[in-house]
């Protein structure tokens, strides 16, 4: 019985410093506002003046049903951002519903 208690104490002695080290490491990493503690590291934000990355994305084609309901379908037409921004400044808003 005593042997078992000692073994448990030894384990506790090992686990506690390891857990403390992990917590200290998490606290030392700078996080962006809103990031979850211990969450995945985010890449740095885009810098002002930096050349924007160009992506080509399919457009959502919208039609209206007879009852006025908006119907959306994936269009075969793709839009390349670099084809838009030389004409006018471009404001891109990215999000999902949830």
């Amino acid at each position, binding site marked *: 019985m005593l042997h078992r208690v000692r073994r448990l104490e030894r384990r506790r002695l090992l686990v506690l410093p390891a857990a403390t080290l992990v917590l200290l490491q998490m606290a030392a990493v700078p996080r962006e506002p809103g990031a979850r503690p211990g969450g995945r590291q985010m*890449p740095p934000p885009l*810098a002002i003046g930096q050349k924007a990355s160009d992506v080509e994305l399919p457009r959502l084609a*919208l039609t209206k049903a007879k009852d006025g309901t908006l*119907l959306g*379908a994936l269009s075969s037409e793709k839009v390349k951002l670099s084809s838009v921004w030389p004409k006018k400044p471009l*404001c891109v*808003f990215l*999000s*999902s*519903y949830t």
Partner: protein
Amino acid sequence: MQALYEAYKDKVAFLFVYTREAHPAREGKEGGARARTPNEVGATKTLQERALAATDCIRGLKFTLPVLIDTMDSQAWNAFRMHQAATAVIDTDGRIAFHSRGPGGAQPQEAEKVLKQLLANQGKLGADVPLSEPAAEPAAEPPARRPTTR
């Protein structure tokens, strides 16, 4: 964002990019805490599913902005360093003039200030802002987050 679009659509190009779900609902779970919200959306697995979710989104939010769908390998998500939501303003030379992200990532008021400055300067950032190459893209698509049930 819709109000900003209405105010500036003649002078500025707007695009709404529907990305993968930041907080997808757990599959097959009905009646959970999140299922009470009207915009309950599970993680979309195909572009067609994402297009349907985008339609629900713009219908729900009454958006009339042109909509693009992010690719399944999240090219736009990675290119714009997404975190839940993001807004980027790009000048006519293809340079980033404004970028915000996070839970309050839309920041239309801040974006509007930058748009006004750009429009006053023929759509370009000031010459004093140095042009730099795009930062290296993240190595790969981050692993999909476990669906939340909050």
